[in-house]
């Protein structure tokens, strides 16, 4: 793995609460959660930049909804 660098992240209570909730639910540290979030964000941005559209599908009903990335 590449060398790691440190940064200070200022979050609101609500934002930190979401990070802590993910951390608990996924049994991962807050750093690992944010690293995952960054990867996913970059992946989605790359697809949208290419002109792809993002959809979520309900597995049971097969209903699809487009996610708008701004």
């Amino acid at each position: 793995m590449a060398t790691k660098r440190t940064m200070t992240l200022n979050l609101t209570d609500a934002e930190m609460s979401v990070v802590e909730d993910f951390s608990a639910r996924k049994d991962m540290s807050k750093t690992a959660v944010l690293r995952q979030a960054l990867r996913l964000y970059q992946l989605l941005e790359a697809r949208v930049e290419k002109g792809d559209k993002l959809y979520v599908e309900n597995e049971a009903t097969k209903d699809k909804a487009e996610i708008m990335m701004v």
Partner: protein
Amino acid sequence: MSENGLRVTLLDTATGEPREAELLSSITEKQLTDVEGEWKPALYDRFREFNRAGKPPTEWPGTENKHWDWRQKVEKLQGLLSHDGYCLTCQGMTEGLMLIDTSSYRCRLPENEKRNLVYIDYVESAPWNRPELEQVPRYRGIGSILVGAAIERSIAEEFKGRIGLHALPQAEPFYSATCGMSDLGRDDTKQGLRYYEMTAAQAEAFIAKGNNR
């Protein structure tokens, strides 16, 4: 593992001696050139032999992934944090390649449902190391080392060693018997390939077996 590589050992089947190899967390131009200049010709040499022996193409082993274009795969994922490449080299030659995805997939086993895992997108050994193509493969241990690298990466990402993959038919016994992964059956969304998943406990058992796989 550092970017400079990790020293690992392959078994040279001709001599029975161990051979020092290197595992790197990257796929460079050198690997792509080896695939195009050495792997592909070696694969098609085997196909030519099968053809000359009168074997119908439907019975040729090793055809399932003959269309894989590693250059295209690597270039498509260049710069994405969600994907990484690994290579295994020995005596200056690329002997194995693997592409992993650390973001897009979730566990399917009920005990870990929706937890993160490292998904092995593609893994391949050089044709001369593949038992379905060679009566005496040149090196043994490539698949195990690459699966081990995926497990180590999963641990580093705090996924506890959980990994998953869809296996080509000829590799199914390797993932079930050698790796001890759970077989979750055919997946019609992935050309009917069988899906295999490794839990944290199975990953621990795989690592504990070491060279006795």
